[in-house]
C-alpha cells in the first residue's frame, strides 16, 4: 500500500497491481485521502449523439491526486423528472492542465447520466474521490496495447497520455458501432499511436475478427501489456488469447454497480481467481483495474 502512494517520477502512474498471493496485497490506494469536492462546471458539451464531455474544476489539486484508471463518484443533480439518489462512479477521462481540473466523458444511458446531462456551465456539482487503484504502467515498458470499446475509451485515455510522455509506444485497437461513434480523436488527444479501428457496421468488430487482429499485432511485435475496458466479450476473448503470449501481461478496468465506492458497502464484488484461489474482490477497492488472467467470467450476475 505504501509503495503506491509514494511520489512517482513524472509521467508514470504508480504500479497498482502487484497483487501477489493474498487479497490483502491488493488493498492499494493511490490517494492520501478521499474527500467530497464541490466543483464548478467549466465545459459541458455533446461529443456525438451519445457521449458528453464534462470539465469540472475544484479547489483541491485533483490533477496531481488522480492516476490513470481511477474514478470519482458523481452526485448527479436532481431535475424535474429525475432524482438520482446514489452517486455515480465515473472513470476519469483527463486532468489538468490547471491543478483543480478533472474531465469526464460519459455515455448518457440511465437516470443518473440523463440528470447529469442537464447540468449547465457555471453550475456546481459534488464529486467524491479519487477512488480505486490504477493501471500498472512500468518505466521499463517498450510497447503497450489498448483495446477500447464504448465508455472504456474514457477510462484508458489518461493511460495513453502517461505512456506517451514516458516514450512508450502504443498500439490502439478501437471498436465502435459505426465510424461516427468511434471518437478516435477524443481517445488519442494528440498522442501518436498505431491505430486499428473496427466496426459493428462492417462486421470487423466481431470477437473472432478482433481476436485475429490482436493475435497478428501481438505476433508481429512484443507488447509488454494489453489493457482493456468496456466489453465483457472482448475481455473474455483476450483472456484466452493472452495465454498464448506469456510475456504479455493483461489488465482490465472492470465495471460493477456500486453504492459507497470506497470498499465499505460490499455491493460491487466480483469473483476473481487469484493463484487458483477463488475469491470475491471489491471492484471499487481492489479494482477497478485487475489482471485479465484473474477475471472469472460471469454473465448473469450484474
Amino acid at each position, binding site marked *: 500500500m505504501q509503495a503506491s502512494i509514494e511520489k512517482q517520477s513524472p509521467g508514470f502512474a504508480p504500479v497498482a497491481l502487484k497483487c501477489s498471493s493474498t487479497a490483502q496485497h491488493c488493498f492499494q490506494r493511490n490517494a492520501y485521502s478521499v474527500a*467530497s469536492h464541490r466543483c464548478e462546471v467549466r465545459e459541458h458539451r455533446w461529443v456525438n449523439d451519445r457521449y458528453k464531455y464534462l470539465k469540472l474544476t475544484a479547489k483541491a489539486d485533483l490533477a496531481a491526486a488522480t492516476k490513470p484508471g481511477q474514478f470519482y463518484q458523481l452526485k448527479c443533480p436532481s431535475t424535474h423528472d429525475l432524482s438520482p439518489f446514489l452517486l455515480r462512479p465515473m472513470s476519469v477521462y483527463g486532468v489538468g492542465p490547471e491543478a483543480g481540473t478533472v474531465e469526464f466523458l460519459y455515455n448518457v444511458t440511465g437516470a443518473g447520466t440523463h440528470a447529469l446531462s442537464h447540468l449547465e456551465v457555471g453550475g456546481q456539482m459534488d464529486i467524491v474521490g479519487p477512488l480505486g487503484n490504477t493501471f500498472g504502467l512500468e518505466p521499463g515498458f517498450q510497447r503497450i496495447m489498448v483495446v477500447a470499446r464504448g465508455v472504456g475509451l474514457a477510462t484508458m485515455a489518461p493511460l495513453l497520455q502517461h505512456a506517451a510522455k514516458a516514450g512508450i509506444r502504443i498500439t490502439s485497437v478501437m471498436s465502435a458501432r459505426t465510424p461516427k461513434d468511434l471518437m478516435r480523436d477524443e481517445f488519442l488527444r494528440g498522442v501518436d499511436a498505431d491505430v486499428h479501428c473496427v466496426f459493428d457496421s462492417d462486421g470487423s468488430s466481431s470477437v473472432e475478427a478482433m481476436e485475429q487482429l490482436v493475435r497478428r499485432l501481438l505476433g508481429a511485435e512484443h507488447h509488454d501489456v494489453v489493457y482493456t475496458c468496456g466489453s465483457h466479450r472482448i475481455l473474455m476473448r483476450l483472456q484466452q488469447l493472452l495465454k498464448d503470449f506469456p510475456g504479455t501481461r493483461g489488465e482490465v478496468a472492470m465495471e460493477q454497480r456500486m453504492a459507497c465506492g470506497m470498499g465499505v458497502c460490499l*455491493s460491487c464484488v466480483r469473483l476473481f481467481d487469484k493463484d487458483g484461489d477463488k475469491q470475491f474482490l471489491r471492484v471499487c477497492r481492489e479494482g477497478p483495474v485487475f489482471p485479465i488472467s484473474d477475471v472469472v467470467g460471469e454473465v448473469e450476475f450484474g
Partner: protein
Amino acid sequence: MADLSVRVGELGLRNPVMPASGCFAIEYAEALDLNNLGALVIKSVSPKCRAGNPTPRVAETYSGMLNSIGIPSKGLAYYRESVLPAYTRYDTPVVVSISADTVDEFADAVAEMSLPEVAVIEANISCPNLEADGMAFAMTPETTYKVVGAIRRRTSHPFWAKLTPNASHIAAVAKAAEEAGADALVMGNTVLGMSIDVRTRKPKLGNVMGGLSGPAIKPIVLRMVHQCYRSVRIPIIGCGGISSAEDAVEFMLAGASAVQVGTASFIDPGAMQKIIDGLESLCQEIGVENIRELTGQVKLDRQLSDRWLRFAQQSG
C-alpha cells in the same frame, strides 16, 4: 460551545454520532478522523462463513436505496485477528455487531466476542431466525425475549439489541428486549422492500428482496423510536435515514440518546463529521447547552384531542 457528550447506559460518548453497522468500515479513515466519532460500529460478523448474496446487491429508489448484501463473513476467529485490531487503536469506543442464525449460535458468538477491547456488543437481531422459519428474531416479542435473554446470560458486556422496523408491534418487541436484559436498543434497521426493472422484468436485486434505507425510511423509524421511548426505560439509539444535524436532533427529541448514520456516508464519506459540526451550530441556534437534554423532549399536547373536540363543537 454546546456540550455534545451523551451517555448510553454506562457508556459515555463524546458526541451522539456513530456509524450504523453495515455502512462503516476502516476505509472511512481516509475520509474522516475516527477519533471524532461517538463510537465505531463495525459491520456485522456472523459465526458461520458466508459469501453474501448474489449481485446486483444494490438498487436506487426514491430518496434511498435497496440493498441485499447478505452479511458476508469469514467467521469470528478471522474477525478477531484480522478485522477488529484496526478499529481498537482509536480513542473511540468500539461496538462489535453480531448476527447469527439460531439462539444458541447468537449467545455463543456474543460470549466469544465479549473482549476487553470491545466496549459494546450490538446484537443484530433483525437477521432471519432459522429456527422460526426465517422470520427475523426481532419481529415478535417472544423470539426477541428468547434471543436477548440467551445473550444476556452469556455476557456481562454492555449489549445493545438492534431492532427491525419490519416488526408489527414495536413497543412490545422493545419491552421484551428490555425485560430480557438488553442495556439499550438500536431502533432500527432497513425496511424490507423490492424493486423490478420493467424492461427486463427482473428484480433489481440479485436476492429479489432487500432492505430499504436512506431518507425514504426516516419518518417510519422516527415514529418507532418514539414508540420505543414510550415503552421502555433503557436508552435508545436512533438509526434510519439520518443525514443531517437536524435529522439527528429530531431523533433525539423523539427519544433517542444517540444516533447511527448509515446510507448518508455512501453519498458523502464525510457525512458523519458534517453532522457533528452541524450539531454544534444547531445547538447554538436553538439555545441548547447540553445535547443530552434533548432526549425525549418532543412537545406533546396530551389534551390536544379534548381541546379540539370542545373547539369543534362550537362549529356549525
